[in-house]
């Protein structure tokens, strides 16, 4: 039964990454491929109606992790607190950029929110990319791991910059 739940959570995260992955990708490349304002709006309209549906799978995966593996959920959300809060803000920030950009026709307004969309999408990809790097590399769980950590008991909760890039630290 435990393996079935792990498979379910894996499928849910895979659904999220394969679907929202192209949303984030479209946000990253949006300024490179969209020469005119109409083309940039076309990019946004390609992902606009579906991106929020994709995030249903992230929420479902989080809910499934909480239901099936509460200890792992608690450790992950405590340990990666900063990264998860950052991800949450970036997702909201990106949604704001997509929603607000075409509400006014001022070039500066559109340019500002377009830039924010690129920055938000890029930063989300960086955070989501650093996560598997840290998970595969192992994290300091447990009393011994924390007390033997070089930066003291808070290192698990406050990532150092090197950890963000997946570099062993």
């Amino acid at each position, binding site marked *: 039964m435990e393996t079935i*739940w792990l498979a379910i959570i894996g499928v849910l995260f895979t659904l999220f990454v394969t679907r929202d992955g192209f949303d984030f*990708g479209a946000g990253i490349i949006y300024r490179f491929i969209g020469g005119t304002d109409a083309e940039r709006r076309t990019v946004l309209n390609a992902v606009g109606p579906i991106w929020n*549906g994709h995030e249903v799978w992230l929420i*479902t995966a989080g809910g499934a992790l909480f*239901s099936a*593996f509460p200890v*792992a959920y608690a450790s992950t959300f405590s340990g990666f607190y900063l990264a998860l809060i950052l991800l949450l803000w970036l997702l909201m920030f990106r949604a704001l950029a997509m929603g607000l950009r075409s509400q006014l026709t001022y070039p500066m307004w559109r340019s500002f929110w377009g830039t924010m969309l690129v920055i938000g999408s890029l930063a989300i990809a960086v955070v989501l*990319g650093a996560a598997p790097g840290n998970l*595969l590399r192992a994290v300091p769980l447990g009393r011994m791991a924390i007390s033997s950590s070089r930066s003291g008991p808070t290192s698990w909760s406050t990532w150092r910059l090197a950890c963000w890039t997946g570099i062993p630290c």
Partner: protein
Amino acid sequence: MTAAFVVAVFALHGANFITFKTEGDLQERARALARAMGWRVAVPSAVTAVATYIARPASLQNFLQFPSGIALPALSFATIGPVIWFRRRQCDGAAFAASAASIIFLMLGAGFTIYPNVLISTTDADDLAIYNAATSPYALRIGLGWFAVGASFATAYTIFMYCSFRGKVALPDEGEGEGY
């Protein structure tokens, strides 16, 4: 390193999606970018695999115990080939499907690497495996039923959403109050 790799993978996947959904100059630029991104994903993919082993040699443990599992990361790397091949032939849908397949095999490979752990600790005694991190067997069994109900709604919504917005993007006029 994994962060840079994921940025490249998402950019390629996004460019493939845009070629699939658009037409004209925008589609051509997205195709050119996707072609340029193919090798920029293939090389970091191989480097990241080696770096994972260097950072934690024990990550090979499951592959040594079950050698057939090596097929997962191998397929993830190998499906970048069809992405490049389909891209050159301007098969937009197939290139998008191939980049999605590469991500799926990447996720499967990562899952196979850490199984049966959910969180790997720097000290072996503190690993959170599916057996010591799971809730009670009763809760797992009941939860499966509730999950089936919830997931069927989410799946129905996803299918409805994709059916509603299938085909190429039609840009709505400005001021209609809809669209982006």
